[in-house]
């Protein structure tokens, strides 16, 4: 199917995607700032990776920032794409068939919202001075900051997209080019995989 045969994006779609891209950029910058402030102060003092060569430490920090800032941007973009793919359209009554890109966008939204519920729930019930487990950790296990959100949410979203795409491909249900939003969604899924690769580079550079 050629590029011109795809279902075009309307003006409202482009508006939604632009707004989500801007919001994603803001969230990525906020995540980056929080990481630099909280980890930068401890960079040489209590950082367990301080025994590594400085060059490796810097590479590791750069990769982590790319992974987490990218997760923030991709999540908001995914929510925007979900709105574009699933919003009701008045032009033709027939719903467009959804493809793997739409699935990736929907999973990004669903998993990000599911984890946000957990995050908010633990933020509400967390006492001011939380009791510690025997190993010294807070028993609920979620770090209530932006960085902690992406540490947990990104692998979940990537795994869900991998699961969906694996099953669609293995069972012969993979149908490409259902529309421009599907094509963008496939790029979104590919970007999640790329961030997985970035995280892999972090593992190779230095222990997590």
């Amino acid at each position, binding site marked *: 199917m050629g590029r011109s045969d795809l279902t075009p994006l309307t003006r409202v779609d482009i508006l939604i995607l632009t707004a989500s891209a801007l919001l994603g950029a803001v969230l990525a910058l906020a995540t980056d700032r929080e990481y630099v402030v909280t980890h930068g102060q401890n960079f040489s003092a209590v950082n367990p990776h301080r025994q590594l060569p400085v060059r490796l430490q810097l590479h590791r920090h750069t990769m982590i920032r790319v992974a987490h800032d990218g997760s923030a941007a991709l999540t908001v973009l995914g929510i925007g794409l979900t709105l574009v793919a699933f919003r009701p359209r008045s032009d033709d009554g027939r719903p467009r068939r959804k493809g793997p890109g739409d699935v990736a966008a929907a999973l990004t939204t669903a998993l990000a919202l599911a984890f946000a519920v957990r995050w908010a729930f633990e933020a509400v*019930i967390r006492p001011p001075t939380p009791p510690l487990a025997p190993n010294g950790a807070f028993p609920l296990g979620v770090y209530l900051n932006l960085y902690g959100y992406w540490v947990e949410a990104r692998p979940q979203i990537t*795994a869900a997209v991998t699961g969906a795409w694996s099953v669609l491909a293995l069972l*012969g249900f993979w149908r490409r080019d259902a529309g421009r939003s599907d094509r963008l969604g496939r790029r979104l899924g590919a970007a999640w995989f790329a961030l997985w690769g970035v995280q892999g580079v972090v593992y190779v550079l230095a222990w997590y």
Partner: protein
Amino acid sequence: MAVAAAESRGTFPMRLPRVRFTIFDAMALVAATAFGLAAARGIDPGGFWPRPGFFLRWLFFGPSTCLAAAWAAGLLLLSAVRPPRLRNRLLRQPGLAACVAALASMAFGFLGFVGYIGVHTEPPNALSMQPAGAYWFAAYQRTSEFVIGAWVGLWITGRWSAGRNWVDRAGRAVGLFWIVQFAYAGVGVALNYVLRSF
């Protein structure tokens, strides 16, 4: 020709024979159960029985994970011995799709952990040998997300066609286990913490 084209689209217009539950199926499932229990005991002998106060955690993260994996493999094997057309139809139903997703995630997780052990740099004085439980945890760590992804994918693309046969129902039960485990990991742990605080 028309049937093959319809099957490639995921629709099955022809009536297929019933999926009977035979003695061979029962024997295979008993064998899968035995294998799962033996694996659970081998992987984590200390966690085979629940500790007081940790029943729900044991229920979702204990030997049940090995049992769910063994049943997923068993159901796939049982569908593999059916006639080709029936097998293809079963494989495209959500029950066996969940089993495929679960086993694929375990393969991904296990190989990823082995790769991680192989290439990552260790802190000084770290133990590079990992217990069997660490490999198993890495294998099933993302299984819930894989199953959720598989089912959401089938549903959104319009391919969700639940079958009225025991293989699909059993597969859906296995998939449901992983989804409930995901929900428990999300809010159940926190809820348990709140309930115990009162």
